């Protein structure tokens, strides 16, 4: 079957479900995508009325992680109340959201971190066949203006004013999608389309391993060159569903951790600290890399930490809502130990289990 | 051409104004005579005070040009720069850029009018400057009503001037605190309440109102009830600002730049602006 047909069918089904959910009042809003104004782009869209359901689309260019919008849309549909009053007790309106594998894992993390109330979210699961990198397609056509791109089954047909060329789709799928093992959503209330099977990938961290094999001088050279063009626009941070600190450390004024101009040390520190802040939580959704206007591959940092978390804790982020977060969950009994002795943890403490009584474990959102 | 270079000034005196130490009045003197000679300002204008290493902060001028060469700035300790300012001692050097903004039209629209000045909290600083200017040419203005409120007696600024103004007899002075306090024999009540009781009729009058937004909001209805209109009321807006030269865009309220087009606006002008202040 033709890919465009599958995506057309998915689009139809999404619209149908959106109409049903809004009409029955099951949800007050739905987070999806509308068509973009340029080839290979889509716009995130929050649908609140039936007419807008027809604007929803699904295609192979949905590179943003819609979970980023979820907490804000949830609060936008709550009954307004005076902040001095207690929260209203009546059940609050629900929000539906489209989710592929990685986006659904980010919703799981939002549930684990108490950002999102599971009861108020309707996850519309769509298996991902891997999203295409606009930058990769453009790189194949230097000096050319791409006017439209049609999706085929395993290929893309790229049109310009004076050319039409067919390219292999998988070759331009984003790096993170190419190494993804969980393309199908892990949390589904309503399924759209057929489930996509788990991918067996013998080398999920190959890109990181290639870097790890280099000498420290070579790695430093890679790091300084890669991040040298950063303009500190923070698109990578703002598009990330994990980055929701009310005031990011880069914006703190007292103390001010980072300078405000384009010093390489400040820029590097921003990216390294942001990556560490995402450790154990990052689902490698690739949104950061996809939105960077300078084409910086900051994903390599989070990917490396994903590998470390897997090796140290045996955990992949966001696979189970009930599972503890690896780096922010610990039994109370270990607190004294941590404070008293900063020596390396014994091997037995590496994988921290929640204690049997839920109230004894501490969680930091 | 505009300049970002501050004039060097020296701290000649520091007065801790309030019981909690959060407000200090700095007496500043220019270090170079040519800066002193070139200096001119009108009440309602402000300056950028700068502490090398901490940065700059906008501060309203509390002194009137009629008070002599030295400038008074009453500074509330709130952010990075004002905290650094509070740590300075007499004799220390700092930078001053300005004067910035339009100021009150005391020599234009306000001349010959009855003046009603209403201040809440430390926003009284620029009304102190306005009143001192007016008192230097008392005959140019009609009746003067000065209403000033603070949370507690210990939070009132300019004790000595308040005493002098009360004794003059040509100012209707109403000083109030929010709640009863031991040893306080004066008025008690929020500024809007007192204003409702004592505000004069609007005939041939203008009002200068400076204070927190909530105070301004509740002071207007009683004034409107006795016939005051929006173009008779002057307010001073505050927004985050950086360059003070209408360039950096930080202080914009819609199309209006507070630092360049203001900070003084009539209430009629403010009402035409988007609610971005």
């Amino acid at each position, binding site marked *: 079957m033709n890919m465009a047909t599958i995506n057309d069918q998915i689009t139809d089904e999404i619209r149908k479900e959106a109409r049903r959910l809004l009409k029955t009042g099951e949800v007050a809003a739905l987070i999806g995508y509308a068509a973009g104004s340029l080839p290979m782009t889509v*716009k995130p869209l929050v649908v609140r009325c039936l007419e807008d359901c027809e604007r929803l689309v699904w295609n192979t260019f949905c590179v943003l992680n819609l979970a980023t919008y979820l907490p804000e849309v949830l609060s936008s549909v709550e009954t307004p109340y005076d902040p001095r009053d207690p929260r209203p007790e009546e059940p609050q309106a629900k929000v539906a959201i489209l989710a592929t594998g990685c986006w659904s894992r980010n919703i799981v993390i939002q549930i684990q971190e108490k950002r999102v109330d599971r009861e108020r979210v309707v996850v519309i699961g769509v298996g991902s066949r891997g999203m295409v990198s606009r930058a990769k397609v453009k790189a194949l056509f230097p000096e050319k203006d*791409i006017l439209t791109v049609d999706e085929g089954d395993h290929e893309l047909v790229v049109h310009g004013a004076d050319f039409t060329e067919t390219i292999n789709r998988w070759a331009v799928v984003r790096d993170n999608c190419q190494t993804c093992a969980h393309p199908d959503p892990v949390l589904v209330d309503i399924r759209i389309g057929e489930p996509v099977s788990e991918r067996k990938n013998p080398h999920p961290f190959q890109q990181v391993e290639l870097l790890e094999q280099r000498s420290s001088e070579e790695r430093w050279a890679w790091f300084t060159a890669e*991040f040298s*063009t950063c303009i500190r626009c923070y698109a990578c941070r703002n*598009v990330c569903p994990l980055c929701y600190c009310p005031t990011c450390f880069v914006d703190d004024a007292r103390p001010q951790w980072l300078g405000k101009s384009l010093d390489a040390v400040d820029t590097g520190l921003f990216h390294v600290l942001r990556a560490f802040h995402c450790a154990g939580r990052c689902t490698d959704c690739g949104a950061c890399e996809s939105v960077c*206007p300078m084409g910086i591959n900051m994903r390599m940092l989070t990917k490396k930490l994903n590998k470390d978390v897997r090796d140290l804790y045996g955990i992949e982020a966001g696979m189970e809502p009930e599972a503890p977060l690896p780096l922010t969950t610990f039994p109370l009994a270990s607190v004294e130990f941590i404070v008293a002795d900063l020596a390396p943890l014994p091997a037995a403490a590496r994988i921290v289990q929640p204690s049997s009584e839920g109230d004894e474990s501490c969680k930091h959102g | 051409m505009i300049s970002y270079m501050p004039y060097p000034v020296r701290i000649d005196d520091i007065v801790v104004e309030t019981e909690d130490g959060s407000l200090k009045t700095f007496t500043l003197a220019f270090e170079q005579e040519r800066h002193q000679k070139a200096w001119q300002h009108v009440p309602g204008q402000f300056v950028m005070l700068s502490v090398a290493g901490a940065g700059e902060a906008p501060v309203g001028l509390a002194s009137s040009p009629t008070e002599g060469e030295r400038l008074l700035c009453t500074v509330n300790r709130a952010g990075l720069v004002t905290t650094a300012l509070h740590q300075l001692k007499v004799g220390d050097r700092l930078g001053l850029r300005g004067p910035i903004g339009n100021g009150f039209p005391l020599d234009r629209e306000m001349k010959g009018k009855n003046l009603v000045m209403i201040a809440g909290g430390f926003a009284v600083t620029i009304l102190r400057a306005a009143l001192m200017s007016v008192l230097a040419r008392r005959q140019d203005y009609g009746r003067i009503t000065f209403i000033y409120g603070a949370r507690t007696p210990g939070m009132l600024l300019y004790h000595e001037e308040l005493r002098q103004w009360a004794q003059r007899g040509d100012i209707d002075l109403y000083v109030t605190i929010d709640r009863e306090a031991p040893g306080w024999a004066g008025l008690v009540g929020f500024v809007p309440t007192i204003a409702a009781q004592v505000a004069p009729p609007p005939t041939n009058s203008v009002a200068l109102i400076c204070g927190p937004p909530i105070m301004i909001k509740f002071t207007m209805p009683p004034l409107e009830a006795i016939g005051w209109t929006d173009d008779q009321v002057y307010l001073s807006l505050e927004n985050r600002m950086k360059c003070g030269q209408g360039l950096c865009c930080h202080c914009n*309220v819609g199309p209006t730049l507070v630092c360049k087009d203001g900070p003084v606006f009539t209430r009629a002008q403010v009402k035409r602006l988007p609610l971005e202040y």
Partner: protein
Amino acid sequence: MQTWMISPVELDGLIQQWQKSYAVYVPALSKPATAATDCAPGWRRINAGEPWTLPVGPTPASVKSFYFPQPEILMTFHLEENHPDKGVMREPLKSHEMQVVLGVRPCDAASVLLNQLPFTEDPLFMAKCQRTALVGFTCTTRLSTCFCTEMGGSPHHCAGLDLALSPLQNGFLLEVLSEKGETLVAGCKLVPASESDLAVLADRRQGQGATSSYSSQLEVLKACALSRLYDAPMWQELGEACINCGACTFICPTCFCFDMQDEVVQGQGRRIRYWDSCMFPLYSQHTSGHNPRGKKLQRTRNRFLHKLKYFPDRFGPFSCVGCGRCIGDCPVNIDIREVLNDLVRRTELE
């Protein structure tokens, strides 16, 4: 001013001539090998004979950073104990050396003229104008994101350039447009352009000028009461999709908001001004914590109204040259052309 005909070889010779006396910058098309650059990201300095290529359409980075560097050092000071000048502010050393920026497109040249409107009294910006020569190439290809003609420009305009090169079959027409341009070609033996070559250029300019929609849209938005545009329902959807990053503002040739701050390292201080973005919440937040534009919608609206209403009301033209960089790079595909059309439509609805 004169117009010459110059062959590609002669142009190379001319560039090598400039490199003897001036710093010459060209668009950087790939990442620099190291973090050390002596100019803004997106540009690189070339030495004599070094090859360079001009990309189709606007250069990856705008010329803004040559005039409005990130950061600009306003003054320097010492804070070391016992330093005789402790705390005294000094102007930094200024360079008066001419720099040549090569490969500028008409949209970016127009942006410099637009930015001069607010910065006309700013000594730092104007000093950069003095010492920067723009050598531009008019465009023969219009990308799908280009909309300079809708913004009053043209792919064949040369306003703001010191030298303009327009490609012809066998070389370039070289227009000398300023005194700086004169300096750059002084002493060169060049062939004056023929009547027929000049006719080709005139013909191009005849065909592709500013669209009539430009002035009508500009006038209609200027005439419209702010509240009508400000309260438009369109901001809800835009504000909801916008992630409030600074990508559009930083890559925009005409966004010029800045912040100022002191930086001190081991007793040596500098006061800098650096790029800020009205998309960031801290931009408008008061020390008290109150934020007049605390919501995403308010910030998104501020950026577009600044470009399409506040700036024209104050200075005349839109603060946009139609380079389309923001359209191509916006993470959520906010398209300023759609915003403009929606605003104009808003004025028409009753």
